[in-house]
């Protein structure tokens, strides 16, 4: 079993978690780690000497920002028979993807640059998700493709019809008990986020941040629509005032894939060519 691990633009939280916790036993037989810049020599020559298809699996975490990172991922794709993208950054752009807010061009997710056999969402992925994906990879069967469902389906908090009175920022108060976070006025990305984490954050008393990925590319706008519809009309001004960082709150993990930032880029390109 020859493996390569590579962290592009990420916080390095992802690859630690799979080595420490849940690499399936089958992977440990004759395990040889050929390339892992974080612990061994970081030289691209190591990779360039390998023949095509000589690596069994390559794991890639993080988003792609520089030309070097892009070249490395492409060369991994060439040499690995299976490529696994791990974490929200690799799949959707993740937190580094928020650079698109202020910069002309931010980092791109790995899945946009190369094709991946397995995609493991999460920031970091829940051990269960990771294990299921890796076992599926090992047994060469694809994971059952079911239509994605929102995190709300797994959330233990009580749901009742409600209107939003005011937006509250999460810190300062105890929200561990009570109804749906949205009814309390805390922005929770649950309605527009794919499930699979078994609502881990919600069970721990935190609102969903959206790390398992958006249900579609316009999830941020959908969440904003839902919030704005729930607000009492008399409280609209207050609501807009308290919506302090709309981009960071609504597009936390997938701004790099949002059509809006692509639109801005297209507009700038048009302006340049005109």
């Amino acid at each position, binding site marked *: 079993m020859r493996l390569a691990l590579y962290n592009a633009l990420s916080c390095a939280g992802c690859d630690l978690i799979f080595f420490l916790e849940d690499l399936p036993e089958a992977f440990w037989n004759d395990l040889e780690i050929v390339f892992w810049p974080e612990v061994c020599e970081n030289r691209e020559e190591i990779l360039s000497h390998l023949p095509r298809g000589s690596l069994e699996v390559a794991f890639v975490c993080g988003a792609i920002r520089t030309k070097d990172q892009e070249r490395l991922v492409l060369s991994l794709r060439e040499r690995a028979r299976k490529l696994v993208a791990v974490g929200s950054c690799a799949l959707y752009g993740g937190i580094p993807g928020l650079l698109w*807010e*202020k910069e002309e061009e931010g980092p791109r997710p790995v899945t946009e640059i190369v094709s991946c056999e397995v995609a493991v969402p999460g920031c970091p992925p829940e051990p269960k998700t990771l294990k299921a994906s890796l076992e599926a990879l090992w047994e060469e069967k694809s994971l059952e493709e079911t239509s994605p469902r929102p995190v709300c389906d797994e959330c233990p908090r009580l749901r009742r019809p409600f209107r939003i009175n005011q937006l509250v920022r999460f810190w300062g108060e105890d929200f561990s008990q009570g109804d749906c976070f949205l009814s309390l006025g805390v922005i929770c990305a649950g309605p527009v986020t794919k499930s699979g984490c078994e609502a881990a954050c919600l069970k721990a008393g935190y609102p969903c941040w959206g790390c398992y990925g958006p249900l*579609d590319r*316009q999830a*941020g*706008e*959908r969440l*904003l*629509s839902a*919030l*704005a*519809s729930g*607000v009492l*009309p008399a409280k*609209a001004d207050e*609501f*807009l005032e308290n*919506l302090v*960082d*709309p*981009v960071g709150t*609504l597009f936390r993990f997938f701004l790099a894939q949002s*059509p*809006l*930032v*692509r*639109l*801005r880029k297209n*507009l700038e390109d048009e302006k340049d060519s005109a």
Partner: protein
Amino acid sequence: MRPRLIGFLCEWCAAKALENMAHKRLRLPDGFMPLRVNCSGAVELSLITQALYEGASGVLVGGCPKGQCHYREGNTRAAIRLRAYRRLLEALGLPPDRIRAVWVGSGEGERLYQAIWQFWKELTGEASPL
């Protein structure tokens, strides 16, 4: 690319106003594409994003006058949504004036006509023939 203006018009007032205007045989901008929707409150922001992304120069949302929504508060919700959306566009560095709302009654074809041409002029510089 040809400039296009997408109009999401509510079927109770704004789309009726468009019909009302049609009786007067007034010419609308060539790039204006009206779409009839159930209620201005049914226009999800993701639709507006899609319209802009696929090449619309502007999006006009037309609904009933304030307080006269057929579904009680659809237009109020639409107004709050569009205000929030404009804030989002500003935060991302996109021009927020590509989105506009107009509230007209079913008999106010003339006003809708003015509003469409006014918006079209701001987007493209081409003024109304009248």
